[in-house]
């Protein structure tokens, strides 16, 4: 949805569409409590600016919400969904907790590692994929699973993983948590 990046001349600015969403988010909270919108606005920023939160992007978010930059850094570094380093176009978040482990999550992780030649936390050399192992995503009954952008891929087999990676590579699009699934 939000693909019109506005990083011209190093100027960091949301699209008009995103700014309207920010305004609407702030309206959900009482006067003076606009900081409450920080987590959703950071998701929006990550989707708008290449999938990660650089310091200038975080400073921009701080200015939008009239809070101090440190208040944004504190939050961005606490939660696991915010990337503080550049990532590939598609982040493969593979659950590794109990139920998924019981159903073969380790094989899924190993398969992705071998196919892409990367380890956990790394990005493939073509910049397409980042592999991230994560904790329980609430999909334990359809384990093993991985999340890519907003979408849950469940009851995985190695074949299904191959199909998914092929498709994502062909689409060659950045996936974000804000995608419509």
């Amino acid at each position, binding site marked *: 949805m939000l693909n019109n990046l506005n990083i011209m001349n190093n100027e960091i600015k949301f699209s008009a569409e995103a700014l309207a969403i920010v305004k609407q988010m702030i309206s959900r909270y*009482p006067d003076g409590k606009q900081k409450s919108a920080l*987590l959703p606005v950071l998701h929006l920023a990550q989707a708008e600016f290449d999938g990660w939160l650089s310091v200038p992007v975080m400073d921009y978010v701080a200015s939008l919400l009239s809070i101090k930059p440190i208040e944004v850094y504190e939050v961005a570094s606490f939660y696991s969904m*915010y990337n503080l380093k550049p990532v590939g176009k598609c982040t493969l978040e593979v659950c590794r907790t109990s*139920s998924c482990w019981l159903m073969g999550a380790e094989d899924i992780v190993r398969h992705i590692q071998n196919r892409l030649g990367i380890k956990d936390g790394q990005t493939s050399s073509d910049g397409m994929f980042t592999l991230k192992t994560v904790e329980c995503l609430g999909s334990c009954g359809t384990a093993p699973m991985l999340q890519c952008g907003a979408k849950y891929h469940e009851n995985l087999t190695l074949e299904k993983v191959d199909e998914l990676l092929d498709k994502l590579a062909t689409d060659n699009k950045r996936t974000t948590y804000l995608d419509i699934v």
Partner: protein
Amino acid sequence: MPTKLLLNNEHIPGINTLQVYRNNGGYASVEKALKQMTPEAIVEEVKISGLRGRGGAGFPTGMKWSFLAKPAGVPRYLVCNADESEPGTFKDRYLMEKIPHLLVEGMITSSYALGCNTAYIYIRGEYFYVSRILENAIAEAYAAGYLGSNILGTGYNLNLYVQVGGGAYICGEETALLESLEGKRGNPRIKPPFPAIAGLYGCPTVVNNVETIAAVVPIVNNGGEAYSKIGIGKSTGTKLISASGHINKPGVYEIELGIPVEEFIYSDSYCGGIRNGKQLKAVVAGGSSVPVLPTELILKTAAGQPRLMSYESLSEGGFQTGTMLGSGGFIVMDEDTSIVKNLYTFTRFYHHESCGQCSPCREGTGWMEKIMHKILDGHGTLKDVDLLWDIQSKIEGKTICPLGEAAAWPVAAAIRHFRHEFEAYVMQPSSIKDVKHYYRLNNIEPIPA
């Protein structure tokens, strides 16, 4: 026919839309509550129902509601806890995805009962797509006059919003959730004051689980008395159980509290037995933090009585021989499962999720993960098993929030019931790579179910 109160209409096509939902009796509780009942009368019905919080702790909901402070001129808030991050738990996601209007309806009825004019649903960030489903349902409810000002012409006003998190298990703890909703790190607050006195923005707040809020709908529709007759003893009503692991039919089941655990595992109406004709080895009955129990203790209590799916029966025998209903995250392990390795995934989880405010939790979780890693790698010693025991015993009761305990209990239970497996890992490390667990290692027949 099993009694279903929440998922009875789940199979109806289009039940996620307001029209189909309403054609099937949806929003009746809002009509009844706002037009015929006082807020106090609703709280009373919830008390009579015996409903207990479905988020994990099982605290009586009516009592919690009656603690809410009501100073004049100060707003009160209802916040729905849809953070659902306890490993093994996926019932709230299921409910919100399939029947979003049930949660919206419950939020309206409950907000009216509590005198709130603003309410939030805090949902874990990973469930972004579910937040969209909820937002669509909320938009439909506004359009139909169930939300906004002067709802159904009764003069009652309510705004309901969805807030997404950023990925952090600890934000399921209610005070961490409130911090997060205020746009901060999810660091739990020191209690007291409790949220009922000073919660969101310092105002009186009730935090309830998705399933708890949903259960208010049948309670208002049919009366607390009718609800209290379902279930067993102090475990009234129905409960959503998320079943996962080595079973034939994983999924979310609505059960009447009090059915035998054995029936739940083996009946075709529920889990359908163990996959691939294997034997049952162990169960984590209520999400990762509750004690794991071996087959003989999960099917029967130490006293030899059939173990039932209820708060009381699952915890019978205390932590020596019992466990807890918790969040209803029911993880089943077959005979080939390594309890040691499963525990490793839990210790890694809790280390990853500790917010870091309290030393026993921050340091203890990290230390336990390291030792588990060492044991799994074949470098452990018998002393390490004792050390694990020692560390876990020094966390309980010494932390700001219960995450510390949640991290300690699974370690204690795994050692208590499966110490021999830890010893096998330590004493015969060379065989670990090929052999899945102790029974195989020692040519011992697994305990029959």
